[in-house]
């Protein structure tokens, strides 16, 4: 019999659909993938090593550079870990916790907005891309109001936040929250309900419940595979135990479910922000913390429900002003580990979409 040869295709690092500098070497039979090998590290900056030569406070801004589309949540995860290590979790003023919840959930909406947009772009729905970015930009306006920056906020502090909410923030937030449900409705109109989009995503690259747990999926990806888990509800940190919200779970774990879970999460985030707006007390936004942060000897592992999954910080302290060892458990880094398995047998076009559906950010993968 005549035989055709397999084609080796180097997807990335300069490729529009790898969401950064991810590189994947694909073996193609026709346009179907028989084998995929991940190559990471093009954006490796050695942040974990850098942490060892920075003081605890100096390291806060580095967190914005991890998952650069959800900087606020990364900072929060880091300060939460250090607060736990110092044992000052109880002393944080309530107002600060509420502000953290508000900006954190806003950041989640922004991150999911980007997710929707890049997902749309990867199925070539260029128009839907602008819808996602339009709403994300308005969220960033608000975050800019509180922190002065749009991406690298550097807003969280040990024991609170850097500054109180500015005047007029609540009004603007209220206006945005009134607009967002209609905007999310539009997503359904322009992309999610589209026949071609459904054909491209439903049943594509499914990840079963067992496989998702085995490969260490966390966050929305895990929920899309039918595991009902959410740190905000199961192990409530901050003041999340005071809010009522649903945890959207889908059963099939295919590309479409991964999208829908995130869209539903955006709606839940709006609910949480609404409740936080109502419940936010007056008061200080910073606890009394020493000028020099010197956590006691010991270690801590603390996780936070990031937009991409569980962002964990394992910090080992030797009692000095600098962390002895700081390890960042990054959800994207672990989630991408499934891609070679997932891509097997997929069409090249679907592989690109499946990769987008995992919601990877290279800043966090390579750290």
């Amino acid at each position, binding site marked *: 019999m005549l035989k055709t040869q397999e084609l080796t295709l180097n997807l990335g690092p300069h490729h529009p659909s790898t969401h950064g500098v991810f590189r994947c070497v694909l073996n193609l039979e026709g346009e179907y993938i028989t084998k995929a090998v991940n190559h990471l*590290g093009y954006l490796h900056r050695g942040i*974990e090593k850098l942490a060892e030569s920075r003081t605890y406070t100096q390291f806060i801004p580095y967190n914005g550079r991890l998952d650069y589309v959800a900087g606020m949540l990364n900072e929060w995860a880091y300060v939460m870990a250090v607060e736990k290590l110092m044992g000052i979790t109880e002393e944080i003023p309530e107002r600060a916790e509420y502000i953290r919840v508000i900006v954190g959930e806003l950041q989640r909406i922004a991150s999911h907005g980007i997710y929707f947009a890049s997902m749309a772009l990867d199925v070539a729905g260029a128009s839907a891309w602008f819808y996602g970015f339009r709403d994300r930009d308005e969220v960033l306006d608000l975050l800019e109001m509180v922190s002065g920056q749009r991406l690298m906020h550097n807003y969280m502090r040990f024991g609170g936040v850097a500054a109180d909410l500015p005047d007029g923030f609540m009004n603007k937030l209220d206006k945005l929250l009134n607009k967002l449900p209609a905007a999310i409705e539009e997503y359904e109109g322009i992309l999610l309900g589209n026949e071609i989009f459904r054909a491209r995503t439903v049943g594509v690259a499914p990840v079963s419940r067992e496989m998702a*747990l085995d490969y*260490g999926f966390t966050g929305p990806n895990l929920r899309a595979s039918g595991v009902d888990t959410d740190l905000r509800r199961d192990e409530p940190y901050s003041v999340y135990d005071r809010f009522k919200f649903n945890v959207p779970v889908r059963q099939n774990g295919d590309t479409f479910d991964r999208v829908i879970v995130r869209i539903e999460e955006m709606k839940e985030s709006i609910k949480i922000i609404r409740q936080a707006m109502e419940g936010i007390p007056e008061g200080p936004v910073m606890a009394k913390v020493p000028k020099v942060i010197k956590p006691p000897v*010991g*270690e801590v*592992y603390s996780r936070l429900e990031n937009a991409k999954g569980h962002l964990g910080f394992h910090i080992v302290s030797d009692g000095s002003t600098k962390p002895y060892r700081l390890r960042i*458990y990054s959800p994207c880094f672990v989630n991408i*580990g499934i891609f070679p398995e997932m891509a097997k047998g997929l069409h090249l076009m679907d592989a690109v979409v499946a990769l987008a559906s995992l919601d990877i950010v290279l800043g966090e993968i390579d750290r």
Partner: protein
Amino acid sequence: MDKIVDREALVGELNQKFGNCAEVFEDNTNQSIKVKPEKLVEVMQELRDNPKYDFKVLMNLNSVDYPENFTVVYHLNSLTHLHKLTVKVELDKVNPQVPSITSVWNAANVQEREAYDLMGILFTGHPNLKRILLVDDFVGHPLRKDWKMQA
């Protein structure tokens, strides 16, 4: 705050089943046990599959370069019992070797590669133990304390 397993009972059961392999490890978190490297895979398998513990999730795999030893830290989590456990494996400073647990959790695959890449810990039995973040011809393991940063 965190739900903690009864470590004494857990260690007792593990020791009974696999021989003297585990002990309670005292640190500030109060949720650590120490496991001997040779028995690590069996212990992890047990922790995952025994419905009493049901640690279905490998939360984190870390390696620390302590002055006296290398420690590989596994953070485990259960979705049903919502409890947590930290498993620590102490390794030789000169030749740190530990069996790979990729057969238990595939999630360990990339994390073990990372630990090998940055800390230089050999995971025996790993299907593809290559550098993951650094270039293939990189010399040294930067997260070790004796690795000097060059600006």
